[in-house]
């Protein structure tokens, strides 16, 4: 199982701060997001749109990164903005 953590605006739009996704094999992050959206019953765009960065185990990664069972995935909207 991978644990998907949602923050700030993405958390508000999804209506949850955490989605658990069962994984049986290393899976590209892009596909994990699709599984997470399906598990939460929301549109995939809610998870992928509005993300500035993705992190796996607290390190930023690209969308083709392979997610393993037990990983912590974080969806990070643009950071604390302001002029």
């Amino acid at each position, binding site marked *: 199982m991978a644990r998907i*953590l949602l*923050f*700030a*605006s993405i958390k*508000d739009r999804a209506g949850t701060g955490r989605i658990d996704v069962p994984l049986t094999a290393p899976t590209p992050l892009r596909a994990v997001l699709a599984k997470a959206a399906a598990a939460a019953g929301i549109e995939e765009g809610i998870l992928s749109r*509005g993300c500035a*960065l993705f*992190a796996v185990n*607290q390190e*930023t990664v690209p969308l083709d990164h392979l997610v393993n069972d037990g990983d912590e995935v*974080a969806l*990070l*909207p*643009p*950071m*604390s*903005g*302001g*002029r």
Partner: protein
Amino acid sequence: MARLQREDFDIGVEIRGLADRYPGAGAVVSFLGTVRDFSKGEDIQKLVFESYEGMAEKELDRLERDARGQFDILDCLVIHRFGEVGVGDNIVLIVVASAHRPAGFEACRWMIEELKRRVPIWKNEFTTTGRHWVEEHP
């Protein structure tokens, strides 16, 4: 040194503390971010900062290390608060000690811009008409 904390900090203690550790420092440059009372024509009531605990601390540490590696400075510190902060309150402090002022100013400016780009902390503005996340970064 990098810290993520809920409680306020004393800018005098922090600036003096860094300056006193470095007799070779001829410049101590600081940036203090505070809560202003307006945003896009609305009155701000408070801000709530949400952080990704664990990664935010790691990225603050990395920011501090990177600044020491990239600029000709003696040392630097960064402190960022999370949770609820009111109008006029302190949010973030960056202090840079250097032998000469140009490197200090450059490093301080770089650190606050980088912090806003890569440290996972988000600002939720509460105004008289509701709340919203601030995600633009001009």
